[in-house]
């Protein structure tokens, strides 16, 4: 089902096209001439030491971070063009955060239905029907009426994934989705992500889960100091890293 051609540099049908992006925080260079294209249906895992700019890169895709120069095209629309409807682009790009960020004043079900009801004007019963299907998918049906504070971290993150899916996004961005979890809860979240990948979702995942990268990624992107140093299929990256910095990174974590 998923794309076996992992050479994303030769993309014919890019759904995300990042070209020569630079990003400064004050004088600190967070992104340094970054270019990356992602095809529809591809799963890209971004690796790198902390502070390497991988989260920043992910957040520029739906303009949670603005860029200093370069261009980012998502599904044919320039994300940073003042003429683009950024809210419409964001609705097509689901995002999952390290700290879950479920709406604390809403029940699980209401977390999922808020955006479809308010933004897509879906009737409540239709939105709830869809939401229950998504909760079934992430194994959280019996917690539909609970509030986020009543859930474990792993449960919250599964709900957060379902919430992002409720808008039927074309792309899903994951910003270290398991980094804030207790070890025994990481598996349940990764399982949901693997299922999503098998269904053909386009995914860009910033993570430290090497097993997930190996199993799911079409392509691994390695970043350090704001630069993309290496883009390779997971087997090649893990077994024969080209860049000296990649080798040191892998030695440290494996």
């Amino acid at each position, binding site marked *: 089902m998923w794309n076996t051609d992992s050479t994303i540099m030769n993309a014919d049908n890019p759904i995300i096209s990042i070209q020569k992006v630079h990003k400064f925080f004050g004088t600190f260079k967070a992104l340094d001439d970054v270019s990356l294209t992602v095809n529809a249906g591809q799963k890209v895992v971004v690796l790198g030491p902390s502070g390497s700019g991988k989260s920043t890169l992910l957040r520029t895709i*739906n303009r*949670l971070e603005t860029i200093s120069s370069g261009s980012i095209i998502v599904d044919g629309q320039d994300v940073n063009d003042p003429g683009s409807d950024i*809210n*419409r682009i*964001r*609705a097509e*790009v*689901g*995002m999952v*955060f390290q*700290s*879950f*960020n*479920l*709406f*604390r*004043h*809403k029940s699980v079900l209401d977390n999922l239905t*808020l*955006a479809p009801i*308010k*933004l897509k004007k879906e009737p409540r019963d239709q939105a709830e029907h869809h939401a229950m299907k998504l909760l079934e998918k992430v194994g959280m049906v019996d917690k539909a009426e609970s*509030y986020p*504070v*009543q859930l474990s971290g792993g449960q919250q993150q599964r709900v*957060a994934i379902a*919430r*992002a899916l409720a*808008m039927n996004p074309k792309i899903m961005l994951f910003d270290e989705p398991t980094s*804030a979890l207790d070890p025994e809860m990481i598996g349940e979240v990764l399982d949901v992500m693997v299922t999503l990948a098998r269904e053909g979702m386009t995914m860009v995942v910033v993570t430290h889960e090497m097993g997930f990268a190996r199993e799911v990624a079409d392509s691994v992107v390695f970043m350090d100091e704001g630069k993309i140093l290496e883009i390779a299929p997971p087997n090649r990256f893990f077994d024969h890293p080209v860049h000296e910095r990649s080798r040191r990174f892998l030695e440290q974590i494996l």
Partner: protein
Amino acid sequence: MRDKPVVIEVGDGAAIPDPRDEGLFTAWRISFFGTLAIIAYLVVFRPDPYLDIIKFLPDGIVVTFQVTFASIALALVLGLIAGLGRISKNTFFNLAASTYIEVVRGIPLLVQLFYIYFALGHLVRVPDMVAAIVAMGFCYGAYMGEVFRAGILSIDTGQTEASLSLGFNRSQTMRYVVLPQAWRTILPPVGNEFIALLKDTSLVSILAVSDILRRGREFASESFLYFETYTMIALIYLVITLILSKILSNVEHRLNHYERR
């Protein structure tokens, strides 16, 4: 991730009773039932003059509540605007809100009351009650602005980012995600401000507004029973503020429902 909700401490107004305080003798109960007992004792055993005084005051109580509710409504609207202005990235809006807050907080309430009542009275003639409400609302709006600002800033930025990433714009995010949560943080200080405002409405008795205090002064100046009259006025203010603080603490407790496991 933050486990404890942020509490904004505002040192003015009555202490709000803790709803979890299960003891039989709480400060609230002692004050409330003690006050009621004293009023009952005075009215029953010394009806002359205390019963006469208490009969004279209800009109004033109504006026005090009218001024309080109208002023707090105005203050909440101004406070929300000022609070949003203070966190706005729009330079003009931000400066306007900050200047309003700086200026109003630097002038005593009584002076503002005189100013709006007498100074502006030269330009536009408005009813006494309206002038009093505008002055109180204008002043408390500035304090309320700081409360709203702190309440909004107490909400984790992750909530805003999650909302934006779903496709909500800034104002929808404020309306559906941030403000409903900020209310929980804002309510206790707003409640304190409400009670403080109710007490401060006694200042409007200096203008020609017949609130509790002014009604009392009228009674005292005719009967020369200053001690008795002001005793009763103090007791009535105390009963009102104690009832209000109890109501507010219950509302606050209910508003916290989604933070309870």
